[in-house]
């Protein structure tokens, strides 16, 4: 511990410290900690889990066939800590499932063996879940800690940055993960609905689970920083990052995740049925089906109303296909009708063979439809023509149209039924926030700092994610030379949730204004956060775990 800066300007605020003794009231939380050959860091991670301000915990350490960790776990002598010491390496998903079978908590939380909770982590998330009745899942913010790995294995901290502080967006969660697993807590009983972790996936098992959780619950974003995960500079030893380098395997995993459909009912997601319209199953039809598989991330089931003879030629591993044999002489409209009788999605897309499928091909109009307040409205897909007509509509509207005018083509029957068909405007498309964010980042890259700053500010005002965007705006204003605005925004962020970046910015401007005491106070707080691991040690000591504190100290090198 020769590394503390406790003599900096007055008494630095330990804002991550628990306010008092650990709280023993409240539902039990099971923390799942899989570990594999990371003895060097496990002790520190485990210390951070045990020394929480919230006491009703069960900490399950799962040794996934790696080096023995019994001594590290036993050093705590804490009855709340359970060790599953498996000799065989079965992977993280298997380990988590094994731990879930032993979990007794009302809530489940996760901690990797090289990451850290701050002492308020569990308490902050339990509070959110107990008070937000609509949310059975919550997540907080984490520092991404850039570090050098020193020859003795210790970490030299280079910077701590909140790279994501993203409010929950269900549509986005279907596309990619914006809730880090280490920051996640969910009701244990949700696993009965989502199903267990997918042991066939080699990567992205966390996104697979958060995606499935999104079918059943809203997520509560707690914009507090309650832990950190490490990003070593240079070659990274993280297993998940190594595995992501295999692109075909990565894609295989992504497709498996995107096509996973947990058992119904889904209280938070409306299903979509895609009716594929083709005379026969030829190469072109096969290509279209393959494209649908590769480019669709919204949950769907694909209905193939085709002659029985064609099915023998269908050579695909694609999941979620429902084969519907029809007579070869059946018209295309009749095939749609046959499929429609079986569709169980609230939304139905009609897609002809040969239709050009690309990223967001169905999600753009579908999102517009989901959010449309018009009573009878459907959306044509980008690229839809008179010859290759494709659209997405509400199932009840299509049923109504087909019932009224079964003799007409699908398109004509919708018009006859008064269903207005149009293409979505830009404002109706999903990921508006991401589009603007990308533009602001491009402006930053071009060095157009003032433009970037104004965009970040605009996003903060209009698209939620306020603290995150204000932080980005503050930095861009500083780079643009508007130090006053940078300081003002940093101050606003620091009043709610101080970060190293915003404290540093505020300090720089204070120094320019010759307010050295204010600058020193901000910088000392930033330094305290950078050395924040000392908080875990202090918590261990104050909570009467001197042996663990020593072990923790040793683990820090």
């Amino acid at each position, binding site marked *: 511990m020769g590394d503390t800066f406790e003599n900096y300007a007055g008494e630095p605020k330990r804002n991550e410290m628990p306010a008092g003794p650990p709280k023993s009231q409240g539902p039990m939380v099971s923390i799942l900690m899989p570990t594999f050959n990371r003895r060097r860091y496990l002790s520190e991670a485990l210390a951070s889990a045990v020394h929480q301000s919230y006491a009703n915990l069960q900490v399950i350490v799962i040794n996934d066939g790696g080096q023995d960790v019994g001594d590290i776990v036993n050093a705590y002598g804490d009855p709340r800590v359970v060790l599953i010491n498996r000799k065989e390496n079965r992977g993280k998903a298997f380990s988590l499932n094994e731990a879930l079978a032993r979990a007794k908590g009302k809530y489940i939380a996760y901690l990797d063996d090289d990451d850290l909770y701050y002492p308020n982590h569990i308490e902050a998330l339990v509070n959110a879940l107990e008070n937000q009745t609509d949310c059975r899942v919550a997540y907080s913010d984490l520092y991404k800690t850039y570090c050098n790995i020193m020859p003795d294995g210790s970490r030299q901290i280079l910077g*701590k*940055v909140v790279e994501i502080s993203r409010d929950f967006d269900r549509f986005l969660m279907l596309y*990619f993960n914006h809730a880090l697993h280490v920051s996640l807590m969910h009701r244990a009983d949700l696993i009965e609905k989502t199903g267990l972790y997918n042991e066939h996936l080699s990567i992205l098992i966390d996104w697979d689970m958060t995606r499935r959780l999104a079918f059943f619950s809203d997520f509560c974003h707690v914009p507090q920083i309650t832990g950190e995960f490490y990003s070593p500079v240079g070659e990274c030893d993280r297993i998940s990052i190594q595995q992501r380098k295999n692109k075909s395997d990565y894609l295989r995993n992504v497709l498996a995740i995107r096509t996973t459909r947990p058992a119904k009912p889904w209280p938070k997601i409306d299903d979509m049925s895609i009716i594929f319209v083709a005379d026969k199953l030829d190469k072109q039809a096969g290509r279209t089906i393959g494209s649908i598989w590769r480019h669709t991330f919204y949950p769907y089931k694909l209905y193939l109303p085709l002659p029985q003879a064609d099915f023998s030629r269908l050579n695909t591993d694609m999941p979620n296909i429902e084969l519907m044999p029809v007579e070869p002489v059946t018209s295309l409209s009749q095939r749609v009708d046959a499929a429609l009788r079986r569709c169980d999605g609230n939304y139905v897309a009609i897609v002809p063979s040969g239709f050009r499928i690309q990223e967001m091909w169905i999600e753009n109009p579908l999102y517009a439809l989901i959010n449309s307040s018009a009573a009878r409205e459907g959306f044509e897909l980008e690229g839809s023509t008179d010859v290759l007509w494709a659209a997405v509509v509400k199932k009840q509207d299509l049923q109504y149209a087909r019932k009224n005018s079964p003799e007409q083509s699908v398109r004509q029957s919708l018009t006859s039924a008064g269903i207005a068909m149009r293409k979505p405007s830009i404002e109706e498309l999903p990921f508006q926030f991401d589009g603007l964010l990308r533009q602001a980042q491009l402006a930053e890259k071009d060095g157009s700092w003032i433009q970037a700053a104004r965009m970040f500010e605009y996003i903060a005002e209009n698209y939620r994610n306020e603290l995150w965007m204000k932080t980005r705006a503050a930095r861009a204003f500083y780079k643009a030379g508007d130090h006053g605005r940078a300081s003002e925004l940093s101050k606003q962020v620091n009043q709610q949730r101080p970060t190293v970046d915003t404290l540093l910015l505020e300090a720089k401007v204070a120094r320019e204004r010759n307010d*050295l005491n204010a600058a020193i106070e901000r*910088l000392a707080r930033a330094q305290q956060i950078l050395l924040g691991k000392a908080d875990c040690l202090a918590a261990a000591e104050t909570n009467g775990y001197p042996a663990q504190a020593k072990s923790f100290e040793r683990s820090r090198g």
Partner: protein
Amino acid sequence: MDITQQNGVEEHNCTQHYEVLQELGDCYTSVGNYAQAQRCYEKAASLGPDEAGPYVGLGVVALQQELFDDAEIAFRVACRLDPGSAKAYTGLAMVSQQKKDYQQAFELYMKSLELDSDNITALLGLFQTSCQMGSFAKIIHYLRVYLNMHPGDTSVMFSLAALYTKQNQFEQSQKILLDILALDPANQEAANLLEEVEHSLAQGSHTQT
């Protein structure tokens, strides 16, 4: 499928801790807390071993404590790490000046001003050294360059006016002093020197007639 992949690793994220320590060191130096400043600079040096900044800081801390040999070593390390560091050369010049090696100090200040003509510490150091050596020709050039960039800096304007006066260039001196008084009518030093200069000018004119 992880949003973090979009953002990439920004260089800033890896220098953040260094920056905090360097800033903190500078602040502590400014308030005279040299022990804390030194700790910050030493830690910053370990995080940024190729950066000259912490060594400049350590040099300044040593200089303030009149540990001239330590200061010289620190500034030399800074010069080696960054041969373009004007601050490091200024530091070395200040050490030489303290050791009364005015010629060496003069050359080092000059080197510093070549690297950064906006460096006020070097400029004033050069002015002092020039006065100590009784040689003003080069300093006039640098003061003028500086004033082109900072036209309203009355203290540097006054120094230049004083130098012109010493060189018997009264008209140039008068012009600058009038400019100072236009900017700062209450500047007594400028008013006094102007009176002296105008007296000299009047005498010169009288002598000519």
